Structure formats: C-alpha cells, structure tokens
C-alpha cells in the first residue's frame, strides 16, 4: 500500500484548471522530484497534498500510518515577515507543536527533538541567533530543521534551494539525500535545478498541461521531455 495515492486529480483556480488527470503513488522511502515549467502547478500540487488547496476532481489518499500532523513542509515563499523577532530555537521548536496536542507547553521530548534536528543540520551554535539576521542558506537550514521536527516520515519541499548560491545549494541537496537514505524519510521535492535533483531522486514527476510524466527516474531519463530539458541545459525549468 502506497504512502500517498493520488488518483486522477485536477486542481483549478476559479475556472482555470492548472493540473488535470494526474495520478501517481508515493511509497515509503521514495524520493520524488517534481519538475515542470513556471506556472505548471508544482506549488499548487504541494499545497493540495498538504490539504491547503481543495481538489476539483479525484482523490488523494494517505496510508493509514500517516496522519496530517506527521508531515514536514518547507514552503517556497514562506509568509514569514522580514523583521520578525524570533530565535532559531523558537522557530525549530515550533515545528514540534503539531505533536503536542492541547498541551500548553513544550515537553522535554519536544526540546530534545528540536535540539537533535539542529544538530543534524549543523545549526546548534546558532540556537540563540535571530532568525532574520541569518544568511539565506542558514535560514533554509533552520526551516528544514523545523520541518524535520514536525515529521519522521514525510518531507514536502518546495524549491528549497532557490536563491541560494551553488555551493550552499549542493550542501542542501546532500543533507536531504542523507535524510532520505539514512533516516528513511520520504521526500517530495519541487526543484528547478533539474540536473542536480535528478541525481538524488528515485522518481520523477514532470508536470505538463496535458501530458504529465510520472515514473521511476530511469524511465524519465529515456523519455523525450527530459532529454529536451537536459540538453537545453537550462536550469530554470
């Protein structure tokens, strides 16, 4: 039984359909990379998986072992105010809230989870730093640590490396690969850096208005869409 089963879904804004006839499965331990042109509906799909956007057709079924408060999410554009006063620790710790139910305060377990994830991402020494004063790459690590604090099973990442310089960006890819390989976390990642992304992914989903592609990476490498994209050498697909 797949972790997530998307069956013939359609997504639209008012009357305009962005994605239609899309079906795919994600299994535990998969690393699914979602690519497609700007505006092809990648972010919309992620929001639909999170239940933030309603489907206009079809269904998304999560396996019984996965409930909504076990998903970690790294948004493309976080709604975070530029000048919000918050320490790194406060931000990471807030990721554990979804598992604390109605309890008003954090438990020891929550604090340990947060500290573990900061350690994993190498931001322990930034614990008391102010989030807004960090560099872009550091901020993304903090948000990834927060997402990890919210899940042990599934990470949804929407263009996590956009705006980062290549070195920081490839560090970030390696961290995510490690999480997928060593910790067995299922990853669904939207990426515009198709060449890098394809290196790590197990499955590809290429969104296209009428003929989206979904399948294992090996099949994708043989299909024409991908060849065009890879040969085009453009990294902003």
């Amino acid at each position, binding site marked *: 039984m797949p972790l997530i089963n998307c069956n013939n879904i359609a997504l639209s804004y008012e009357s305009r359909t962005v994605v239609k006839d899309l079906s795919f499965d994600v299994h535990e331990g998969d690393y699914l990379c979602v690519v497609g042109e700007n505006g092809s509906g990648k972010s919309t799909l992620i929001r639909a998986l999170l239940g933030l956007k309603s489907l206009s057709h079809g269904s998304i079924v999560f396996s019984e072992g996965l409930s*909504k408060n076990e998903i970690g999410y790294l948004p493309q554009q976080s709604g*975070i105010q530029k000048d*919000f006063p918050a320490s790194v620790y*406060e931000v990471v710790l807030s990721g554990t809230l979804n598992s604390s139910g109605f309890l008003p305060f954090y438990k020891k377990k929550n604090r340990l989870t947060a500290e573990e994830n900061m350690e994993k991402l190498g931001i322990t020494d930034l614990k008391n730093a102010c989030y807004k004063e960090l560099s872009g790459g550091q901020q993304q690590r903090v948000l990834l640590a927060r997402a990890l604090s919210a899940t042990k099973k599934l990470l949804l990442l929407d263009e996590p490396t956009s705006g980062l310089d290549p070195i920081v960006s490839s560090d970030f890819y390696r961290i995510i690969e490690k999480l997928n390989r060593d910790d067995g976390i299922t990853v669904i990642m939207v990426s515009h850096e198709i060449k890098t992304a394809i290196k790590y992914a197990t499955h590809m989903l290429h969104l296209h208005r009428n003929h989206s592609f979904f399948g294992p990476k090996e099949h994708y490498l043989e299909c024409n869409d991908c060849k065009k994209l890879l040969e085009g050498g453009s990294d902003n697909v």
Partner: protein
Amino acid sequence: MFDFLTETFMLRAFIVGILVSLTSALLGVSLVLKRYSMIGDGLSHVGFGALSIAAVFGIAPLAVALPVVTVAAFLLLRLNESSKIKGDSAIAIISTGSLAIGIIAVSISGGMTVDISNYLFGSILTMSHSDVVLSTILASSVILIFVLFYNKIFAVTFDESFSRATGIKAGGYNSLIAVLTAVTVVVGMRMMGTLLISSLIIFPALTSIRIFKSFKSVIICSSILSVSCFFIGLVSSYILETPTGATVVCINIIAYIVFYLISYVKRKLLQHRRSAS
C-alpha cells in the same frame, strides 16, 4: 508627597491599569507582527459607536460594547483574509462607519454626557467598583488564555501557512487573537479612552522589537515596558494634573525614542567594529 498612592481611587486605577497594560502588551506583539496594528484602532472606533448607542438607550456601556466589538473583530479578520477588499480599506470602512453612527447617537442623546466623554478620553480615576471588578476579570482571563496558548500563538504569528500545513488550526487561533483583542480594546477604552487605546496596544511591541530579537524576549520586554510606562504615566498625570491616558501615551513615546536611539548606537558601534577589523 506620595500619600495619594494609597487612596482608593488610585489603588483601583493601579490594579486595572497594570492588568490592561499587560493584556495590551501581550496582544500588541502579535498584532504588530501580523501587520494588524490598525485593527486595534478600528475596533476602538467601533467601541465608541457601540457606547454611544448604549447611551441613547440607557444600557450599560460595556454590555453593549463587548459583543459588538468582538463581532467587528471577527469581521475585520475575515475581510483581511479575503483579498476582495484590502484589509486597510476594510478597517477604514468599519471604523469611520462606526464613528458616524456614534456621532449621530451622541447628538440624539443630547450631546456629550460625562459618561461618553469619559470613554472618549478615558478616566481611569473615576472608575466605579463594578467597573474595576469587570475589568479585572476580563483582563486576567485574557492574560491567562494568552499564556496557555503562547506557543501556538507564536507559531501562527510566525508562519501561518506552515502551521496550517502541519495540522494546527490556524483559523481558530486567529479567531482567538481577534476575541482577545476585542476584550482588550473594550476594557482599555475605560482607562485610555477610545481615541488612545490602540497606542497602548502597539507602542510597547514596536519599542521592544527595536532591541530584542527573540519572540519571548520581545513579549517580556513589552510587558515590563507597558506596565512601567503606565505606572510612570499615572503618577505624573496626577502630579502634573494632565489626563492619564494621554500622559501614558507620551511616556510610551519617550520609551520608543530611547529604544530607537539605543538600537541606532548599537548598530553604529557594530558597523564601526566591523570596519575596524
């Protein structure tokens, strides 16, 4: 010289003032960070409208103002979320509308009564025993609820879409913030006046944000600032014979300027040290 501090009316003023200062400081941080500063201002106008209507019909002002302002708070929040009307225009519509209704009601009820002017400009020194009891209960409940939901309020204020995505009922917490703000505005109107209550909400937060960099430290600093400014404001208003609400606001402005200068100097020093090394 400080004998007046033990008078009954002064004690009442201190109790209510400290509680109201605390509630407005706590909520202010969330409102300022969510870019909702103007909601407090809009709500105080709605409060004025409701009070005036209550005066026409001879009903207890707070009994009318509390539900009306709460409904308005919900409405403003909803309008803010839907993109059809811009949030600030929504506030302008509702607040000027209430003001107009209030002014008509005042003139029908025979002009400015003492009661209405008390609410317009605030009159913490003339609060009755029942005013004090009600304000104390309301303000303490707001503080208690805020403390209990502190972590969730932080998460929803910091990043609403992440909270929603990971299964936190962000809409519910937004409504909670709306209700708490409504109660704070209504209780604060008696003390600060409808014209000035919103400054009590936003100033401590704006001031603390200048220097403090974590949510918790901003919350703590705002609370301490708000209570201290109130204390200094009340005492100096008594000595200088100035209106209490306005004096408290002036002390808040002074505190803001001081914090601004400190942060400016700190930044300059930092730049200096960087360029030196």
